[in-house]
């Protein structure tokens, strides 16, 4: 996200006052975090992007109801999570398995897309909370404190989720692969 609580609060107050630049800045700063949470719930990149977009539009449209501007991130991600869960329910109603592979792409797979598929497959084996923790920490760069606040868990629990999630991902992906980084 790259914004301090104070900077976020200032942007939220400007957005509430109708400053369009503040809307731009908030959307740019929080879109990826919204995407990470959506991906943790729905499990597919394209779907996560749709959910993140809709949730961010909804949250920014209703920014007046964000009572603690410095905690905009937690408030937004709760909206994203709810939207993603609703989306998942609708997908279940349409009787499409959540872990069904996406339709075959017309373009040939790239190294990045193959790695992304492997990572998504490995992530699908984790619990939803563990997925969210590892995505927010290792992809988005959230601190344990920030993740704990948005998920309503303790920092200790957050660290445990991350430790186990990494362990399981490494086991699934295979130790020492270049894609694992570190």
């Amino acid at each position: 996200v790259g914004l301090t609580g104070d900077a976020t609060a200032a942007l939220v107050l400007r957005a509430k006052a109708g400053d369009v630049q503040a809307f731009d800045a908030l959307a740019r700063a929080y879109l990826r975090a919204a995407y990470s949470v959506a991906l943790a719930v729905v499990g597919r990149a394209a779907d996560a992007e749709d959910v993140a977009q809709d949730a961010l539009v909804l949250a920014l449209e209703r920014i007046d109801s964000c009572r603690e501007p410095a905690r905009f991130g937690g408030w937004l991600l709760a909206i994203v999570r709810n939207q993603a869960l609703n989306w998942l329910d609708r997908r279940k109603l349409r009787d499409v398995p959540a872990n069904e592979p996406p339709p075959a792409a017309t373009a040939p797979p790239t190294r990045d897309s193959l790695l992304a598929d492997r990572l998504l497959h490995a992530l699908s084996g984790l619990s939803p909370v563990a997925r969210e923790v590892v995505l927010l920490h290792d992809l988005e760069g959230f601190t344990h404190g920030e993740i704990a606040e948005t998920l309503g868990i303790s920092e200790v629990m957050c660290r445990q989720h991350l430790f186990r999630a990494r362990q399981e991902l490494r086991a699934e992906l295979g130790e020492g692969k270049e894609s694992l980084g570190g």
Partner: protein
Amino acid sequence: MTMHDSRIDLSPLDPSRLEPERWDALALSIARRAYERRQRPVTISMQIVHWARPVTALAAAAALVLWGLALIDAQHGTPTASGNDAALAVAAWAESDELPSAREMLITLQETGNGNAR
């Protein structure tokens, strides 16, 4: 630090890294959509949706009052104008677009109940 303490490279899942221009355009389009929706004047259908919950609560409260009155009438076996009184009170609440408080409902119930006793 053990191996499990080090971060996993999830960057292949990062759309902002893979397609930075598209991602930036997406963020801007989200901001503009939200901004425009926020500026949009309230339509009749939005107003109806906005009123749906209080109106439903009002209807439930009215039903409760009328049910209570019917119960009292049935117990006393004295048909009175209490139903009309309650209906007038409910109509007044609906006209003012405000939900009655629990106190107001109890007073109405009591007054119409007294009407029964007279």
